[in-house]
């Protein structure tokens, strides 16, 4: 991996840490120190402040080291797609159950690894997942291992 893409990831990740450290600092609670007793936020605020300054230093270092303006790190699109699959899997898990979520994930990830992900494959994966889930619940009358039945109300509110 060339130096520029490493630095792009370094800038993005350090920026995330910068923002996170500020947010965590603000919500850390009291940093009081009285007769040896510490407020709950004492140590977290010290750590958050240290993280803030080191992240800022790292951003400056990374920006200076980057000779080309390649700010979108390579592979970010695929990372977002996989995250989306993960989030859809959680939705599938909540609504359909563990088995269906796992089936859905498997079809999607297999397609991704084969580099054959497309809208058609996505729709087929969803259809197959529903079909197998329907077989478990409808034909066998079996609850999913996670104990959830399909909740059709979010599909067909009537």
């Amino acid at each position, binding site marked *: *991996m060339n130096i520029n*893409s*490493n630095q792009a*990831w*370094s800038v*993005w*990740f*350090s920026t*995330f*840490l910068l923002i*996170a*450290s500020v*947010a*965590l600092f603000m*919500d*850390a*609670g009291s940093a009081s*120190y009285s007769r*040896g*007793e*510490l407020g*709950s*936020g004492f*140590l*977290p605020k010290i*750590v*958050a402040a*240290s*993280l803030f300054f*080191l*992240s800022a*230093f*790292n951003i400056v*270092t990374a920006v200076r080291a980057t000779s080309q303006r390649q700010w979108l*790190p*390579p*592979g970010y699109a*695929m*990372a977002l797609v*996989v*995250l989306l699959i*993960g*989030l859809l*899997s*959680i939705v599938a*898990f*909540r609504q359909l159950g*563990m088995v269906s*979520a*796992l089936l859905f*994930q*498997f079809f999607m*990830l*297999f397609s*991704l*690894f*084969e*580099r054959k992900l497309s809208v058609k494959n996505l729709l087929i994966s969803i259809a197959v997942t529903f079909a197998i889930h329907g077989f478990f619940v409808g034909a066998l009358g079996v609850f999913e291992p996670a104990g959830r039945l399909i909740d059709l109300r979010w599909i067909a509110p009537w």
Partner: protein
Amino acid sequence: MAIIDGFQYLFSNPEALFYVALAAFLGTLVGALPGLTAAAAIAMLLPLTFYLDPLPALAFLYVMGKSGRFGGSIAAIIFNTPGTAAAAATTLDGHPMAKQGKAGKALKTATLASVFGDTFGEMILIFGAVYIAMVTIKFGPPEYFAIHAMAFIVIGSVIGSSVVKGLISSLFGILVSLVGLDPISGMERMTFGMFELSSGFGLVPVLIGLFVFTEVFDRLTQAGGPSAVVKPITDFSGGLSKAEIKRCVPVAIRSSALGSAIGLLPGLGSSVACFVAYGEEKRRSKTPEKWGTGIVEGIAAPESANNAVSGPSMVPLLTLGIPGSTIAAILVGVFTIHGIQIGPSIFTVNRELIFGLFAAGLVGIAMYGLLGYFAAPLFARVLQKIRPEVTYPLIFLIGFMSAYTARSNPFDIGVALAFGVIGLAMRRAGFSAPAFVISFVLAKGAEEAFRQSLLLSDQGALIFLTRPIALSFLLVGLAVMILRSWRGRPSRSILKDDEMGEDA
């Protein structure tokens, strides 16, 4: 001798023996699979151990770490891709030897060297840890906080491509660990009003995210996909001659000693040991030009060293409560879940358990040794037929289930996914996931020791400067950080920065 009591305890527990055998098999298999490290497999199987008694639970994970290190050599020899970071140096002579039609000899050499090194390291653990514990049992909260602080600084400075990034990784791990309820006042901190965060981030989903999901995401985002076309190896005949064994013995002894010394130091791990041993033996050799062409010494050195790390890496964990590697950090979680206090008192309060664990380690070594010597070619043949396009989705599925199973909380799946993306960014940006995990595990103990120290002291934070042992540990940490910054990063082209310290 206490170790004999340990064997008696182990052999009187058939469940523990079963899990040792299972771990020897699974660890070898997992280690041999490129893309799945022993740390990732341990993270996925960790929820399983919640329902076991302490000895089977600890023995299972401990032996899995050992056999996973050995299993990595199978992938290194057959695929020219180390199954674990610890086997990276084994590719240098292992794969060339396999391509010459001597895969059987390479696998047997790796097996014997691994067994030798692991046994050597285990003896150091068994006979050395007790004496170190006699000293550390006298430490109080200021000393324990200073040790934790030293560990954060040393691990952050040593692991990774730069001191700044290593320290950032450590600080990030500490901060994430402190999310949840204050252990003393019970007040919520850094939860943003989210009920799900009141118990903090679970160890299992964080581990699954950083070691399992990150690996899957990383492989997916590499250009061209994960498949690497390698000509299959079919000839596994051949073994070691007496002359070759005679040449390997001194190599294995020296490399095991080196690996054990490295194992005692937190943060370095097998991935460093294998290269240091390889380099040192090549330097000492009368025929250094032959190294890298497929010689038995080139396999014996790294395999002895990387397995010799395993036992000694438990010494700082058991005597000081400081995990020196990712696997040791995971074991801290298991000890905690079973209500066992880590530290020097473990040798008195839980003596039978600890020596039972050591005995399990020795039995596990024997088991994976037998498996490797007689069945490694079978593993290799099967693994050559498995497609990565099937393996990685299955790995993702198992991780997904494990993340949920730990606390039966769907929120943990989201946490694991988030840390999967964070882990990918850390890997690409040159930050260290092992430094994050070790700090994540240590932070709560460090805070507890810090607050206890302040309650004990009339001088406030000056107590850490007025207690000589505490001050010494802090100065050692600072010295390591300054030296590391001054000397810069050692060149090591094959090893990825994030694999240092992973220990598997």
